[in-house]
């Protein structure tokens, strides 16, 4: 029973296209995140939502727009895709801070822009 699930797992598309990645968690967590792992292998936070409210928005191009229809879902929409957007995107969730609970990650979406 997957706790944090992302779809699709692989996404190959051409420059200039618009694409979305979906994320759902069934853990009942209040906070969800998008992280990006680039070619240098760094995992960097992009966005964080708490109960559908945006709380972290790192320096990310405006072409990236997260949407949280409810606290169990956080989707990522990317407009006008560029070659540099190629990366693995991870969704994660965490409960309210009780003893510093760790993040639970999905299995990632490998985006390849050609």
């Amino acid at each position, binding site marked *: 029973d997957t706790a944090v699930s992302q779809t699709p797992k692989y996404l190959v598309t051409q420059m200039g296209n618009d694409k979305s990645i979906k994320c759902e968690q069934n853990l009942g967590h209040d906070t969800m995140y998008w992280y990006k792992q680039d070619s*240098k292998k*760094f995992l960097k936070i992009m966005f*964080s939502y708490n109960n559908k409210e945006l709380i972290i928005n790192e320096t990310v191009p405006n072409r990236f727009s997260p949407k949280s229809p409810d606290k169990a879902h956080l989707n990522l929409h990317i407009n006008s895709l560029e070659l540099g957007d190629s990366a693995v995107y991870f969704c994660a969730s965490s409960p309210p801070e009780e003893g510093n609970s*760790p*993040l639970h990650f999905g299995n990632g979406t490998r985006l390849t822009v050609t």
Partner: protein
Amino acid sequence: DQQVKQNSPSLSVQEGRISILNCDYTNSMFDYFLWYKKYPAEGPTFLISISSIKDKNEDGRFTVFLNKSAKHLSLHIVPSQPGDSAVYFCAARWTGSNYKLTFGKGTLLTVNP
């Protein structure tokens, strides 16, 4: 601006021996540290954590040590098993950062049978 550094990209140990993975950080505001383990084509999974008020935390074969004065932490795995072969990420955050985790680049551990 790498606030969390894992300077060893890879480590190879024999089964049954100790694995020691190291992590350094520069931000003195960090007050909570975590280790994540990642297999290929999967997301990182939480392994063990430590608060800055402690210098050691143990969970089975895994022990994390924190040296605040040196801004250094390490993960010890004893005894190492082939199933431990994975990429290990060190991560840190500070209270009030809205749970924002800063990750290191990871260390690939290979445990040879």
